[in-house]
């Protein structure tokens, strides 16, 4: 035994150390939920031009009262029907001559919106409306816009709008991003999100 072997390091406690760290990270982990509906608020009231005039037929009134009941154009509606109603309104294309909408597939009811550029959805809620109902309504309205944009994206560029948006954010996407951006803005302009939110009503006004 002239040459002694190097003593082996005991790795038994390594597992303990690793477990300790593991438990620490397990406890501190919160899988973050930073997903949400992005909105842009209108500028402060004093900066809004007062002279913007909206025709009654270009306005789609959505109201949620304090009992979380949904009213569309003053008549009650179920949440599941809201998306279709909003789509029908936006896509109506009832305008004539220069206000005609060439890509709309709606029924062209002269009593409903002229074209998507003119169509405004007005969302009114009461102070007692619950936040979850409000979000549900917002979500349905956004979905109406997204579905219309998807349709146009598919028609013009063979790719749904939501997929284009996803590709734009994807760093591994191989396509031309400036072109993609241009297409996205183009589709956004075809169906601009015009969602007006009035000051919430006091409950006694309803």
């Amino acid at each position, binding site marked *: 035994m002239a040459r002694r072997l190097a003593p082996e390091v005991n790795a038994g406690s390594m597992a303990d150390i690793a477990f300790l760290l593991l438990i620490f*990270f*397990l406890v501190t982990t919160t*899988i973050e939920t930073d*997903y949400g509906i992005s909105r842009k*608020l*209108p500028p402060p009231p004093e900066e809004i031009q007062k002279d913007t005039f909206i025709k009654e037929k270009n306005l789609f009134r959505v109201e949620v009262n304090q009992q979380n009941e949904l009213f569309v154009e003053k008549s009650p509606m179920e949440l599941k029907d809201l998306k279709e109603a909003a789509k029908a309104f936006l896509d109506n294309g009832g305008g004539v001559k220069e206000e005609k909408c060439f890509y709309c597939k709606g029924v062209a009811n002269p009593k409903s919106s002229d074209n998507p550029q003119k169509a405004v959805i007005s969302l009114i809620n009461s102070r007692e409306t619950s936040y979850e109902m409000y979000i549900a309504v917002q979500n349905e309205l956004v979905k109406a816009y997204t579905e219309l944009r998807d349709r146009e994206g598919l028609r013009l560029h063979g790719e749904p709008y939501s997929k284009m948006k996803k590709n734009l954010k994807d760093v591994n996407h191989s396509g031309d991003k400036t072109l993609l951006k241009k297409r996205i803005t183009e589709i956004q302009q075809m169906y601009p999100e015009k969602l007006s939110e009035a*000051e919430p009503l006091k409950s006694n006004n309803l």
Partner: protein
Amino acid sequence: MSKFKNKQSKDMPVISTASLPDIVFMLLFFFMVATVMRKDTLMVDNKLPYADQVEKLENKKAILYIYAGKPSSRYKNIGNEARIQLNDKFAEIKDIKPFVFEERKLKGDKLAPNLITSLKIDKKTNMGVVGDIKKELREVQALKINYTTRIGDVNRNLQ
């Protein structure tokens, strides 16, 4: 006799635990990567509503968080009304403006124009509070907001 015993124990080798640390380290790395340290200690109930038309907030550095909801069970002495939480404190509506200015200063000139306000609001909150928050944000020109939600079908909100 002892010879006999020795031979038997040789037939039953000890299970090596040398790979145990490897497995644990693998899990450890997973959690280390997935962990986002919570910045604020929540003092309000914060069950977010469900939505499915969501966008991901990309730049974590350019987000302001505003929480609102009923005080959580530890802070029941404050009352049952929905409250706003900014950073680690309960706040009033009037504190929002200074909070936004403060955050803008902290984030620096480069990030300040792109700041997004993430509204983390409990689903049982009344819209009155939310409307007040939005009004304050409008007045300080913090117009980009995000209603932070969980991903899911909206009908789960109404159950």
